[in-house]
């Protein structure tokens, strides 16, 4: 498959996903939307394997790695600080500006997601430490 065909296919998948989203909202079918996203991602992934041209290489991997790490750092700080502020309001049980007590409680869930993200990050660090041989005993 040519690279152009692959990008065309991605465009078609995106349009279909948007169409399914509006249909799901209208008919209140969240499972259809969730399934459509999974099928869409799988289709895109399979199509990518069929492309003959080089789409990604070591440079694009490096760019993705750096961008991912920076995104994780920035979003981690933003979400954590926001969640922590919400938790303070939540524990205080008061109305604070535009935040109500109920809305602030959402911050507990957000805080949990942030911690989950950190745990997943640490697990991947361990995984790659092992993969690239940094762990274990030194050879004499």
């Amino acid at each position, binding site marked *: 498959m040519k690279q152009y065909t692959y990008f065309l296919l991605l465009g078609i998948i995106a349009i279909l996903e948007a169409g399914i989203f509006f249909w799901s909202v209208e008919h209140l079918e969240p499972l259809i939307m969730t399934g459509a996203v999974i099928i869409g991602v799988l289709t895109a992934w399979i199509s990518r394997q069929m492309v003959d041209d080089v789409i990604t290489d*070591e*440079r*694009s991997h490096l760019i993705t790695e750096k961008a991912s790490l920076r995104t994780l750092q920035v979003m981690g700080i933003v979400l954590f600080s926001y969640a922590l502020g919400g938790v303070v309001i939540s524990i205080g049980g008061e109305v604070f500006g535009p935040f109500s007590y109920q809305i602030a409680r959402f911050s507990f869930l957000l805080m949990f997601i942030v911690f989950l993200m950190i745990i997943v990050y640490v697990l991947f660090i361990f995984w790659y430490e092992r993969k690239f041989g940094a762990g274990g005993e030194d050879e004499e």
Partner: protein
Amino acid sequence: MHDLTQEDLAREVGVTRQTILAIEKGKYDPSLELAFKMARRFGVTIEDLFIFGEQTP
């Protein structure tokens, strides 16, 4: 000299043309594997193809 386009070289060593362009501009340092592939393609050693310049921190 080798009558080779960036596109051809990229295809032969298995990277994108943008990567070859970035290496030429000095914006990207290739991996050892890619450096070997490129050197082998031109029939020279890595030292002939690349100059090591230490970056100041």
